[in-house]
C-alpha cells in the first residue's frame, strides 16, 4: 500500500503541468497576502484573501490532485497493470487517496496558514482555525473527487460544477445547501475553533465533522468498489 502511495506521490509531483499550475496559483495567493499586508497593514483584507483560498483554491487543488492520481492512468490504460497486482482494490483506492490527500494538504490547506499568519500575525488562532477547517474540507473534497474520477471520465467537469455552481452560485442563493456542501462544513469547524471566524454557516461543528467523515468514507468505499468492477473504455 505504501509503495503505491509513494509512487503516486512522486508521479504527481513529477507532473510538471499540474504542479506548475497549482504552485503558481498558490504562490500568487501568498504574494497577494504579503502585498496586502505591506500596503494595507495587519488584518486588512484578511477575509477576502483567506476566503478566496478556502472557497476557490482549495477545492481546485483537491480536484486536480484527485483526478491526477487516477485520471492519467485510466486514460492511457496503464491502470490495468496496477489492478493486476495481488492487492485489494480498496487498498488501491485508499493508497491513491493518501497520495492526493498529501498534495491537497500541502498545496491547499498549508498556504492558507501561511497567508493567514502573514496577514494577521497577532492572532494565530484564527489562521489555525481556518487551516483546520480547510484540512477537513480538503479531506472530504479529495475523497469525493477520487470517487468521481473512478466513476467517470468527466470527473473534472462534474467536480467543477459541484464546487462552482452547487456550492458557489446556488449556495449563495439557497441557504439550505450548507447541509449538503463540503465548503460550509470546513467553515463550521473553523468557526467553532475561533470566535473571529465569522459568520459561521451554522451547521454546527459536530454535524460538519460527522458529515465530512461520512462523505470521505463513503467516497473511498465507492472508489474501491468502482475499481473492483473496472472496465477499460475507449476515448469518448
Amino acid at each position, binding site marked *: 500500500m505504501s509503495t503505491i502511495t509513494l509512487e503516486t506521490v512522486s508521479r504527481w509531483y513529477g*507532473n510538471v*503541468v*499540474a504542479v506548475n*499550475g*497549482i504552485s503558481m*496559483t498558490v504562490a*500568487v*495567493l501568498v504574494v*497577494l497576502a504579503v502585498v*496586502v499586508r505591506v*500596503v*494595507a497593514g495587519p488584518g*486588512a*483584507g484578511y477575509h*477576502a*484573501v483567506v*476566503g*478566496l483560498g478556502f472557497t*476557490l*483554491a482549495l477545492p*481546485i487543488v483537491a*480536484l*486536480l490532485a484527485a*483526478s*491526477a492520481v487516477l*485520471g*492519467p492512468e485510466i*486514460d492511457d490504460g496503464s491502470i490495468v497493470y496496477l489492478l493486476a497486482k495481488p492487492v485489494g482494490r480498496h487498498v488501491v483506492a485508499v493508497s491513491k487517496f493518501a497520495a492526493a490527500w498529501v498534495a491537497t494538504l500541502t498545496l491547499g490547506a498549508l498556504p492558507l496558514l501561511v497567508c493567514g499568519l502573514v496577514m494577521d500575525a497577532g492572532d494565530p488562532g484564527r489562521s489555525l482555525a481556518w487551516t483546520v477547517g480547510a484540512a477537513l474540507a480538503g479531506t472530504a473534497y479529495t475523497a469525493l473527487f477520487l470517487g468521481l474520477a473512478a466513476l467517470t471520465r*468527466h*470527473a*473534472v*467537469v462534474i467536480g*467543477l*460544477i459541484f464546487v*462552482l*455552481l452547487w456550492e*458557489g*452560485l446556488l449556495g449563495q442563493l439557497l441557504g439550505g445547501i450548507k447541509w449538503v456542501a463540503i465548503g460550509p462544513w470546513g467553515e463550521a469547524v473553523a468557526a467553532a475553533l475561533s470566535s473571529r471566524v465569522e459568520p459561521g454557516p451554522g451547521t454546527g461543528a459536530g454535524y460538519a465533522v460527522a458529515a465530512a467523515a461520512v462523505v470521505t468514507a463513503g467516497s473511498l468505499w465507492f472508489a474501491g468498489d468502482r475499481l473492483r468492477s473496472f472496465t477499460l473504455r475507449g476515448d*469518448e
Partner: protein
Amino acid sequence: MTDPTAATPVGRSVIHDLGYRPYTGPRLGEGAIARALVLTGFRNAFGLGRSGKSKVLPFTLLALNLLPAVIIAGVMALTGADELPIGYAEYASTTQVLLGIFVAAQAPVLFSRDLRHGTIALYLARPLRASTYALARWTSLLAATLVFLILPVVVMYAAALLGELDVTDQTRDAGKAVLLALLLAAALTGVGGLIASWSTRRGFAVVATIAVLLIGNGIVTAVQGIASDEGATMVGEWAGLFSPYSLYRGLARVFGDGGDSLAPPTSGAMQAAYAVVFVATSVACVGALVWRYRRMAER
C-alpha cells in the same frame, strides 16, 4: 482447367487497363478547407457529429445558462414589468461561472485531441498551413462561445420587445451587450485555447483554464474589495486590467449597463486602457496559438 494458385509463367504476365481514372474535378484550396474546419469545429464544440455522451455537457451548460433568461422572460410576461430586472451585459457576469466551465471544458475538444492523438499530421498533409489550422480552431470556439453568450441576450431582447418596452433603448442596450460579448468571448477563447493546446491532457487543461479565469477573477475582486475599503480607487482600477471578467465588468459599467464592478474605470485614459488590454489579450493569445501550432508542424 488451370490451377488458380499456380504462378503465372515467367514472361507471360500482363497489366490490364481496368479503366481507373484519377480525380479531375476542381480541387478546393486552403480557404475551403479552413471553412469546412471551422464548421465541423463549431459543431463539435456542442457535441454535434460526435457521440451522444459528448452532447450532454455542452447542452446542459447551455440550458443552465439560458434558464435565468427564460425565467426573466416568463416573469416579464406575467407581471408586465416596464424594465428588465437585469441588464443585458450584466447577465454574462452573473453567469460567468457557467461560461468559464463551458470554455474550459470545450477548448480541449478542439485544441487538445488532434495534438494528443497525432491526427494534426493528417490535417497538415492537406494544403493547410498550421497557422490557418490554429485560426480555424480558434474561430470555431469563438463562434460557439458567442452562441453561448448571445442566446440569453436574444431571449431577453425578445421578451422586452414583446412586453412593449421602448424599442430604441432596448436595441441600443442589447447591441452594447453583443459588442461586449464579442470582446469577452475573444479573450476567453484565446486563454482557453492556448492552455488546451499546451496541456493536452483534458482534465489538466480544464482545471488550469478554470484556475486562470476564475481564481484570477477572484484575486482581482479581492484586490478591488480591499482597495475600495482602503479608499485607494486607482489600485482597484489598475487591478481590473488583469482578468477578462473584470475587464468586462469595468467596460459594462462604462457603457452604462449596470453591472457590479467594484472599481469601474473612471478616467478616459483608463477606459481606453481597458479596451486596449481586452483586445490585446485576445490578439496575444491567438498569436501564441499560431506560434505553438507552427512549431508543432515543424516536428
